[in-house]
């Protein structure tokens, strides 16, 4: 019985496919049978088990001008080839080509559910855009690195084709995607900690298990000058919701926020509101939800003219083990909504 051959489709730009330079950068996606350009040495390195069945080629400008649509239009011609793996590039330090490789890989992975890999230089702007969803192999900054890159890509493509487990970035040679994965290791955390401390004390090399993230610092907005005519909104991560938690916001690791109308409400009372936050003793918050979402105090400021108006809606989520990604997503949407409603200031309460 003939051994199963693993099928690969390769992505190239117009230049590497030998179609032309900048003057051909506007061509839409087209398919060529078999391996083309750098695909040929790649095929050689892949060996007999794995076959590049087709190459999809697209102009860099065509892609860059409408990334999402172009990525979609790559999927359709690739699909009939039923590839096991999709590979793109290498793009080296070419920005538009890098983005095309990243976006094509991302679209193929999402639509066809197959593993994908590309390769580029560490300073290619596409790296930060796609590293989380696409395996990206480091290359030199220019085409001079082709010869050393091809075997690395081939090894990776074979692994993906054979559905072998992909190990740590440092073992397999790809840019870390920033995905944290749990695994049981041979030693307890305490044993690892003492080992690491001894290495640090002796000046020996050691590798931290969690490199510190760089934080996005948000500059405060300018002060609201005309407070007496401004609309001010309340937003809380303290989990104050209508009784019964109608949108069922989670007690921890919130996956959503909710928006509630408070027009005509002057006091948050225990018969109508509660907290759904799982990170603190709810007794005091449930006795008087204004303690977390200070609606009564805001109404007083509204009445005496300190502020123009309290916005008719408030936004709430639970800030308890909620991932920063989710929090950023909620914040963005809430901010857009508030801006669209001409809210000038927000009081954000946490717990």
């Amino acid at each position, binding site marked *: 019985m003939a051994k199963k051959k693993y099928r690969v489709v390769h992505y190239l730009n117009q230049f590497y496919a030998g179609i032309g330079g900048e003057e051909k950068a506007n061509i839409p996606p087209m398919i060529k049978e078999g391996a083309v350009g750098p695909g040929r040495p790649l095929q050689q390195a892949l060996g007999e088990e794995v076959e590049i069945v087709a190459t999809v080629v697209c102009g860099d400008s065509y892609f860059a001008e409408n990334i999402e649509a172009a990525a979609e239009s790559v999927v359709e011609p690739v699909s009939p080839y039923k590839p096991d793996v999709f590979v793109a590039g290498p793009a080296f330090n070419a920005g538009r080509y890098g983005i095309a490789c990243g976006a094509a890989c991302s679209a193929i992975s999402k639509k066809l559910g197959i593993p994908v890999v590309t390769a580029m230089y560490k300073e290619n702007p596409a790296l930060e855009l796609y590293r989380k969803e696409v395996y990206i192999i480091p290359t030199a900054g220019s085409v001079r690195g082709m010869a050393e890159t091809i075997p690395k890509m081939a090894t990776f493509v074979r692994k993906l084709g054979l559905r072998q487990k992909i190990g740590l970035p440092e073992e397999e040679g790809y840019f870390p995607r920033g995905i*944290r*994965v*749990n695994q*049981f290791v041979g030693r307890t955390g305490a044993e690892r900690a*003492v080992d690491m401390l*001894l290495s640090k004390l002796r000046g020996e090399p050691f590798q931290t298990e969690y*490199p*510190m993230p760089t934080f996005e610092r948000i500059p405060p907005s300018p002060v609201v000058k005309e407070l007496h005519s401004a609309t001010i909104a309340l937003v809380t991560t303290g989990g104050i919701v209508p009784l019964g938690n109608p949108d*069922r916001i989670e007690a921890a690791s919130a996956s959503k926020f909710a928006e509630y109308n408070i027009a005509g409400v002057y006091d948050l009372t225990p018969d109508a509101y509660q907290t759904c936050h799982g*990170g603190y003793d709810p007794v005091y918050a449930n006795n008087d939800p204004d303690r977390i979402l200070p609606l009564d105090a805001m109404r007083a400021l509204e009445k005496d003219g300190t502020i123009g108006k309290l916005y008719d809606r408030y936004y709430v989520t639970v800030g308890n083990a909620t991932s920063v990604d989710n929090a950023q997503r909620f914040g963005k949407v809430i901010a857009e909504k508030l801006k669209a409603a001409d809210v000038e200031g927000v009081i954000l309460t946490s717990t």
Partner: protein
Amino acid sequence: MRLELGIIKIEDVQFGEETTVRDGTLSVNKKELIALVRQDERLSEVDVELARPGEEVRIVPVKDVIEPRVKVSGSGELFPGIIGKMGTVGSGRTNVLRGSGLVTVGRIIGYQEGLIDMSGPGAEYSPFSQTNNVALILHPVDGLAPHAHEEAVRLAGLRAAVHLGKACKDVAPDELEVYELSPVTDTTLPRVAYVQTLLSEGLLHDTYLYGVDAKKILPSLIHPNEVMDGAIVSGNCVSACDKHTTYHHLNNPVIKELYRRHGKDLIFIGVVISNLNVTLADKERSSDYASKLVKFIGAEGAIITEEGFGNPDTDMMMLCKKVEEYGIKTVLITDEYAGRDGGSQSLADAVPQADAVISVGNANEVIALPPMKRIIGDLKPAEVIAGGFVGCLTTDGGLSIEIQAIMGSTCQLGFGKLAARGY
């Protein structure tokens, strides 16, 4: 200060006529245990169930786990200042029912109790799947406030654990563990301190040191033996994965590891206890004070452990920065909240000095747990437990839940072998 732990290995637990330990079996007189716990009038209903490693049993919602022990000789009583008379613990002989656990079960506020699976994929994540457990299921009288409820459950657990421990007072130990910070002749070895932070945010996030609410302490110096002999008691209801149960305090793995390497690779010079607070002034004061103590005792290196997450990340980072600024090298132990897909930033705070971090796992990772034949407690709170979510209970009685809900899964004392790695 010399502490001998007389280890009595427990391989089975059974109900019996009297509470005894014989040939590795802990027998429990159920009536007697219930009567003891019922002395607290705040508890209306008490039941006892047993769970052994490998059984198809799920215990939920769990508040604390305590290792049954008895003080045979030496000063002080177990859990001094809480249920024991005041007196310095950490010397003499304490007998330990190793391989057993007293588990307190029952909903307090529902959110922050956890679960223990005695078999299946969840078992690997909790050390308490490996202990022969005596589960106390505790119901409060109507209208009992959560903080009073917490106290009643805490005291019940400690009393019951000591009651069981008394059964082994005269039993000959299977082995003896001796803990003594003997003088080290090789003075070129690095001097290492351990900074243990205790959750002390109030509102059911409390820990007790010799009976003192930890949010009221200034950081203190303590002998490691005291920690291992009941000076620290858990009173908190923070997420199950990274709350330190009283069991964890009694068996602090950092202390054990530093002892193991004392005189060989390092000189273990002592433990600094600090707290984890809610206001900025408290955070500054405690990290100032604790880092000063670390410097004062002449440390060259320090291991810093966190409890809880989010807010305490800031306390830990402040401590790290200040200790490092004294020229003392640090290693931190923390868990991560990187989201269910592992793609989010993991901590709420960071400093560049934190260049040596042990990660004990991403608490948000979701695990599928199959149904179990027997539930001790009540499965319903699973949807609201930290780590649970609407729809996490499957129709067959299984559940899909973040490992955050599993007792001790990402213990930041480094008790387990779980780690998160960057892919």
